[in-house]
């Protein structure tokens, strides 16, 4: 059973850090990872089931595309396009559910779309791979910018510090918290940066390794050196994936910060009758429809509005 190890992000260049500790890892472990990920979480399935027919959306950090076929009760009623930075995961995603899917190689911090073109967006288990608070906030901003200002809906899931008992992961009991999270009491928790190992069993008959002549020549952080190991006796390879585990309240704070950066009011849409002014100035906002903790994750569902 892999343990979760606290880590500290070297923040000189978070982009490079994520390249090594997130993207390169997923590109290496894609098929194995994919075979273990198939069950949609209930709240995500319910969200996608609730969308009106004809809506188009984007899955920011789609991975192997497991949410692209949803909703199962009305297949094809909505159209979700998958975006990810891992080309090897996208090669799986484009045939998720054995049907042609639309996938795009891209970064969740970019915005390669017509503004507000989507009716909905989901970002599941993705934003916790971004290595600084600024980048996580920007990712939430992008979610809000991607969807229609008048009716866009969004669902975001991130890993929680609070893991449920069924989770296979064991969390270091605040091992490293003293230095990292000793924020004054009352302040929103700041979460914890960790490495989560992915153990990739070596195929028994694997040929001598010739892959990985990658651009930078930088290996995807395997802890076991590959050189000179007899294929038959290859020990499993361990890849450390970077995660930021969210503290309670941290995701909602991120939403508030992102909304404020975009000049959006955070709160319920004013009732139709109470139009603030008539002076042509539209008031734009975002409402938290629901939020909570499910199966070791924090989630928040959002809806944009303008009056």
């Amino acid at each position, binding site marked *: 059973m892999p343990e979760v190890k606290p880590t500290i992000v070297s923040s000189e260049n978070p982009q490079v850090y994520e390249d090594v500790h997130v993207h390169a890892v997923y590109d290496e472990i894609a098929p194995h990872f994919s075979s273990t990920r198939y069950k949609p979480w209930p709240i995500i399935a319910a969200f996608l089931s609730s969308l009106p*027919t*004809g809506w*188009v959306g984007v899955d920011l950090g789609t991975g192997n595309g497991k949410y692209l076929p949803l909703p199962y009760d009305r*297949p094809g*009623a909505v159209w979700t396009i998958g975006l990810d930075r891992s080309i090897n995961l996208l*090669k799986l995603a484009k045939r998720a559910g054995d049907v042609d899917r*639309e996938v795009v190689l*891209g970064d969740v911090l970019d915005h390669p*779309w017509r503004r507000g*073109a989507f009716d909905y967006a989901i970002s599941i288990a993705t934003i916790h791979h971004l290595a600084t608070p600024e980048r996580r906030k920007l990712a939430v901003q992008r979610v809000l910018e991607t969807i229609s200002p008048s009716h866009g809906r969004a669902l975001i899931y991130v890993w929680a510090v609070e893991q449920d008992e069924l989770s296979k992961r064991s969390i270091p009991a605040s091992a490293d918290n003293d230095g990292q999270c000793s924020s004054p009491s009352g302040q929103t928790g700041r979460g914890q940066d960790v490495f989560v190992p992915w153990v990739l069993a070596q195929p028994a008959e694997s040929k001598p390794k010739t892959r990985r002549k990658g651009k930078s020549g930088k290996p995807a952080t395997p802890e076991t050196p590959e050189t000179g190991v007899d294929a038959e006796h290859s020990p499993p390879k361990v890849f450390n994936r970077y995660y930021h585990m969210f503290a309670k309240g941290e995701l909602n704070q991120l939403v508030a910060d992102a909304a404020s950066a975009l000049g959006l009011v955070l709160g319920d849409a004013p009732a139709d009758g109470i139009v603030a002014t008539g002076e042509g100035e539209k008031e734009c906002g975002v409402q938290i429809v629901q939020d909570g903790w499910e199966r070791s994750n924090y989630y928040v569902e959002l809806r944009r509005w303008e009056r």
Partner: protein
Amino acid sequence: MVRLITHNLLACHAKGCTSNNFPLQFQDAAIELRDAEFNADFLRGFLPRIEWTALVGAARQLGDTSLPAEQPEMLDDEFLQKLHHVLLEVHVEEGAMVCPNCKHVYPISNGIPNMLLAEHEIG
């Protein structure tokens, strides 16, 4: 895959490129036609979201002239079938998309468009 449903949503996002950055122009497109499940309700719901002129233009670039220049008011089955084909059954497998404004080239390989930018190109 790059089908025209996706093409109709993509825009150039290179640094400083904020106007006339849509629609991207296909270049050296290799296409494949593959059947997709027809869903009239989806198409009717999706229709108001389409940038129609961009869709018609992109289809013509790919050699399909079945759509009228103006979006018709009557959404009969014959029209929906044509729309279905253009949006969902024409796959651009190889080639590129070029920004009409800054000429940035977004390559398409194995049906997957690469919308990543180099660091200095990010806005």
